[in-house]
């Protein structure tokens, strides 16, 4: 019996992808697969219906994401609805729109419960190279506002643009933007027209050596540091993983592998991961209409089979590894580009 067949699957959190429009153009973003289409915007009516349904399913937290959700016109009305029904929600944003006074003044009248800010650059040149935006002043102001208002931290996707600048962007986040914490994640492939694109994904061993080199400097900036370990543990020196664990600076295994979260996109498509919006497993109004039919869908044998396939050991050598329960084999999407047989080494055998 596989893991997914052993119990009724009932997600505990969800992402609502409310739009695809964005004011940034990150090369590693899945939204490029939707061409940042301004037309792909969830209606307020659909967002409210979906949210009420997700609450009935037992969701305890909702993430509002995009695209760039601060550009989603019904955002403030939607926040009021979440407030009225008592559902905490987090907006996931690059925060540039927060830098505009007129928007910020309206926004703080009806804010999300929390904010997650994704920081892309630590100086104007880097911002332009990374996301093709020149308004570094506006981004800085917006990020700082979010940090100060929500007492928040930043997330940084370590990618090829940041290979030699990670310490600088971390310093900028703490000293200029007042970030209370830093989380570092690793860029994974995006999928456009059934092909993986990995131009910003770093070669795993190059990534490991860059992080090992920069880690001592980053720790001097903040002790509230964490790595979202989407790279298998066996790629790292054992002592480094042990240190991160001892210092409480590591998180691992994504919601898809644990089957704890679901994603609903702007047209009501149900997806296993936000990067997989082209590979929907069902659609609101067609395959599910309410909490009961959504749970039924998530427990159908064919859907369980998809989750099983996505959660396979990258290599059978992982079965021998004493770290698998904590590591989970890393982000499954990595294996669209890299061959596990070339990389995976069970910890016991090293």
């Amino acid at each position: 019996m596989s893991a997914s067949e052993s119990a009724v699957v009932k997600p505990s959190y969800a992402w609502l992808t409310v739009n695809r429009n964005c004011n940034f153009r990150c090369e590693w973003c899945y939204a490029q697969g939707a061409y940042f289409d301004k037309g792909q915007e969830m209606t307020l009516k659909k967002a409210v219906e979906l949210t009420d349904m997700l609450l009935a399913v037992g969701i305890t937290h909702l993430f509002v994401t995009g695209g760039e959700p601060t550009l989603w016109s019904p955002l403030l009305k939607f926040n009021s609805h979440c407030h009225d029904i008592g559902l905490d929600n987090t907006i996931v944003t690059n925060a540039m729109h927060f830098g505009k006074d007129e928007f910020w003044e309206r926004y703080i009248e009806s804010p999300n419960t929390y904010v997650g800010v994704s920081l892309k650059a630590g100086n104007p040149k880097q911002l332009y190279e990374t996301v093709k935006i020149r308004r570094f002043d506006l981004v800085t102001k917006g990020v700082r506002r979010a940090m100060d208002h929500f007492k928040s931290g930043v997330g940084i996707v370590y990618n090829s643009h940041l290979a030699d600048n990670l310490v600088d962007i971390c310093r900028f986040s703490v000293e200029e933007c007042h970030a209370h914490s830093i989380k570092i994640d690793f860029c994974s492939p995006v999928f456009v027209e059934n092909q993986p694109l990995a131009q910003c994904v770093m070669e795993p061993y190059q990534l490991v050596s860059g992080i090992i080199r920069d880690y001592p400097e980053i720790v001097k900036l903040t002790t509230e540091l964490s790595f979202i370990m989407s790279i298998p543990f066996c790629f790292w020196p054992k002592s480094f993983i042990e240190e991160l664990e001892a210092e409480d600076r590591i998180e691992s295994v994504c919601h898809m592998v644990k089957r704890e979260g679901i994603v609903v996109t702007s047209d009501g498509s149900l997806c296993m991961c936000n990067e997989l919006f082209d590979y929907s497993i069902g659609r609101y109004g067609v395959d599910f209409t309410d909490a009961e039919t959504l749970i039924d869908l998530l427990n159908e044998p064919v859907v369980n089979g998809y989750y099983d396939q996505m959660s396979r050991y990258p290599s059978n050598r992982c079965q021998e590894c004493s770290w698998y329960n904590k590591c989970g084999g890393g982000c499954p999407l990595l294996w669209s580009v890299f061959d596990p047989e070339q990389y995976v080494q069970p910890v016991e055998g090293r």
Partner: protein
Amino acid sequence: MSKFIQMLKLQGDVPKKKPKGVAKKRERPGQFSRCECGHCRCVVNI
């Protein structure tokens, strides 16, 4: 979805048990957990 799965070079079996993963031990107000939207992988405080 089957088409996507074929793109992956996963070569192992399906585990009998889901991996538990590592979560932050010290949780306090203002400390942040991951947003796993797959978009930005930014942080959230839940």
